[in-house]
């Protein structure tokens, strides 16, 4: 009766010890990884601070002024360059064609006058291209 229980207990202890050991090793690995990451973050933050300082240094107004004078065709704005928004003319209303006048008409000679196919996005009736009479010598399109 006692022996199987003892055996089971010993096996259990062995398994648990092994698991605990594995867990400990894994945690230790994770902890060293974590502290590595934290050191990295600290270093990166420090780098960002250096870069911020350098960015501010590179953006000194006198440096930007010199570079703008050398490379840009721009000068400080003067008050006469401003106009009131109300002084800018409004955009003219879009052209609305008189549709009636655009319906293809017969020119009396059997050929249609040249008409645009689209006006303001509206498809206009066209003559069947196959019935168009080409005059001699005209280059086929």
């Amino acid at each position, binding site marked *: 009766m006692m022996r199987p229980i003892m055996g089971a207990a010993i096996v259990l202890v062995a398994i648990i010890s092994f698991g605990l050991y594995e867990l400990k090793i894994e945690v230790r690995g994770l902890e060293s990884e974590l502290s590595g990451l934290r050191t990295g973050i600290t270093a990166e933050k420090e780098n960002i601070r250096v870069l*911020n300082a*350098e960015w501010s240094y590179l953006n000194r107004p006198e440096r930007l002024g010199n570079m703008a004078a050398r490379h840009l065709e721009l000068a400080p704005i003067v008050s006469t360059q401003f106009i009131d928004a109300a002084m800018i003319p409004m955009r003219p209303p879009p052209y609305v064609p008189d549709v009636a006048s655009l319906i293809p008409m017969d020119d009396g000679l059997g050929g249609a006058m040249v008409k645009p196919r689209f006006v303001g996005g509206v498809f206009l009736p066209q003559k069947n291209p196959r019935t168009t009479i080409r005059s001699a010598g005209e280059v086929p399109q």
Partner: protein
Amino acid sequence: MTYARQGTPQTYARHSGENSRRVQIEGVAAAALKKSQARLTAVAGIFAIGFLVLAGRVVDLTLVRIPELFAAPPVVTALAFRPDITDRNGILLATSLKGVSLYANPRDIPNPKQAARHLAAIIPGLDQAATVARLSSEKSFVWLERHLGPRQQDAINRLGIPGLNFEPTVKRIYPQGRHAAHVIGYVGIDSEGLGGIEKTLDYEGRQDETRAQVLSIDLRVQNALREELIWAVAEFRAIGAAGVVMDVATGEILALVSLPDFDPNRIDQSINDQRFNRATLAVYEMGSTFKTFTTANALEIGTVNLKSGYDASEPIRVARFIIRDDHAKNRWLSVPEILVYSSNIGAAKMALDIGSERQRKFLGDLGLLRAAEIELPEVGSPLSPTPWREINTMTIAFGHGVAVSPVQLANAFATIINGGVHHVPTLFKRVPGARTPGKRVLSEHVSADMRHLLRRIVVEGTGKKAAAPGYVVGGKTGTAEKAKAGGYNRKALIASFVGAFPMNDPRYVVLALLDEPKGNESTFNFASAGWTAAPTVGRIISRIAPILAVKPIDEDDRQLMAAAWTP
């Protein structure tokens, strides 16, 4: 196994298979057994308690304290060392960076001369002779150089000289150099604040804050103000200059310049005159700019109105003084004319009607009789006469007898034109949109009248050269002689112009003050404010108005101007 706990003699039942027997133990054996049983129970109890404690700890660690264990420890960087300082748009003005300092143990240095020669090649500006002396000393610790860069550290390591070591340090860096140097201030060798905002942070215990401190300064405006003042100092051969740009509605200081200035990164190479803050620490008798306050005071208490005036044909003789006009008209002058033509006689007579007590109260309300409440340690206390006699009242009317700092003058001027509310000036950015608390010292209609009068000074008076077309500038010139022992120095002037724009709806006050300007050909050798400080302010406003998004209007269009002035 079961056993009965009670009863003597004890009865034990033993089950093994089907035949069970009862064993009875009595006498000495029973007593021994009972004793050991009690001991066993006690030991088991102790173990049980131990295991319970362990189990409790496991539960505590795995379930209760999880957030605590998983929280990252505070990251120690230079960030936690001193807060960054930025301008109102977030441009970095001061930051702390990590570096290393070099120290040595002279006992370990084999050849001090050679070591010093190698180090001097890596560290520019290292004093070789002094280094040899330090490395040859009997001490076991000497500092050699503070704050080295990573490249220099690497090069020194490559030298392979024993006895040289590094200590991590933090250095305060001012990327913008001289810009806003007087505002930010500087730190000492151990990064303790010694001037400007840096010192204020220490004083207020804010040096440990990790969040960046946002100033009210706008670096773009600061740069424009500084460049134009540098121009003026060169053009008029002044020994110094001060400038202030202030938001009239909030008291925020957008730019504050004092010339000559210094590089806070190389504070040890600056001299006292460079570190002296002419904009806040210096107090000057401002001259005619005070007529603005005299006129506003008289209009406010009603001793004059815009149609009344004074006879300014004769100089006033009081005691041993004679008050005369620089731009004498020798006739009766109306109140607007007294201001526009800057009449000392008229202002003095106006002040007599106001009276000493009311004059003192008004100047006090404008913040001119106590040190400016600004977040800098370098704040000058104004000088005012005690007792405040009638003669003082008369001279103070045109700005002699009370000495104030430029930032106080700008603040008081803002109060006159912003509708009459005094705001405490600040160098820290206020919450945008929030109403700034203020104290009313002038009624709104008097403030509106003053805006018209100050505009007239620039249109037709002594301040014509301050005009910045489109931005409706108004303001007042002030030329004062510097005090010397027993009187005034006629050759040494303080020329100032305090103006605001746009005058129909003022947003910013601009002050420029030149210390001892000299005339040149372009000014027909005049060094007075109208010829020196006024054009400087005009140039400043032309540059900063587009930056500050002030819409220009056509000043020649009468209809537009009339429409702009009516609210």
